[in-house]
């Protein structure tokens, strides 16, 4: 296990769509473990997508357990090749991201989603969720599409400076 370096805005890997993973190999399992360790060791972080650690493959990890805005909670989620099946009831929340450490922004995203993907054992998984877990899924899936929250910002006055990530 290892804590991985997180790429920041400006790094090209954050702006391209990630490749689909057709076969989950031991390398993918190690990568997922390292991403989980990196997520848990970063204060405030609830998720990491593979492009954030420099790997342009369709995989993210997410765990919103215990967050004050969490309702439905699936605990630790490791998902390959995620697809959004349905998304509804948009709400605006101010988001921060490890890959954009100097800014936060008001972003409108669905608060009810159904997402399909493949788990670490290669089995199809369908996740129906809401509130903060829905937001986390959509934020991470955006990373796999080469999108940062700045691509979804609510307008020029919705982007805010901050000194650093937490």
């Amino acid at each position: 296990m290892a804590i991985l370096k997180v790429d920041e805005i400006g790094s090209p890997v954050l702006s391209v769509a990630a490749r689909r993973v057709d076969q989950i190999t031991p390398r993918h399992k190690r990568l997922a473990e390292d991403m989980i360790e990196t997520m848990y060791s970063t204060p405030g972080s609830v998720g990491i997508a593979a492009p954030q650690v420099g790997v342009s493959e369709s995989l993210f990890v997410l765990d919103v357990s215990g967050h004050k805005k969490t309702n439905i909670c699936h605990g630790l989620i490791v998902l390959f090749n995620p697809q959004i099946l349905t998304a509804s009831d948009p709400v605006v929340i101010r988001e921060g991201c490890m890959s954009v450490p100097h800014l936060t922004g008001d972003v409108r995203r669905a608060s009810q989603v159904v997402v399909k993907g493949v788990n670490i054992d290669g089995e199809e998984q369908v996740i129906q969720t809401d509130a903060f877990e829905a937001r986390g899924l959509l934020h991470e899936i955006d990373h796999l599409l080469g999108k940062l929250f700045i691509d979804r910002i609510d307008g020029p006055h919705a982007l805010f400076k901050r000194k650093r990530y937490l």
Partner: protein
Amino acid sequence: MSRFVLTAVGPDSYGIVARVTAALSDLTCNLADSRMSNLSGHFAMILVVEGANELDERGIYNAVQSRCSELSLLVDVKRIDEEVDNDLDGERFVVSVYGTDRPGIVAGICDVLAAHHANIFDLATRVIETGASSVYTMVLEVALRDSAVLAELEEALTHRAKELGVTCSIRSSDSEEL
């Protein structure tokens, strides 16, 4: 490197930003920071511009005016010698104020904010015409130096709002990390 604050205001039309920034680009200036908005039909821009040491206020002014001669822009350029590093940040809150328009709403609320060391990072006001009367709205983002005074500040704001006949609320603008 030298730094300048450039302000330009004029009746809104197509191409104001394109021309002003083209003039700055010709001088190989960077826009270090900027805010631009349409205020009641006037386009207002304020920019922090960085450029070569030999640039001066007159040079920037002339370059902008020569590109924008027919736009009736009021342009001002001032050199800023050093980078300001006064730490007025703190926990961020959004303050919303609205009510029947009358003189003194902004001054009255901001006086309370200043007294509690709540530093204004952003502020926008709008007047909404609602038939018989006008409603004044103001939204601010403030940084509170000491968030322990929040309850006291909230009470003071509510009190001042009542005197002004407006409604005022304050809430955290915390971001959620993902």
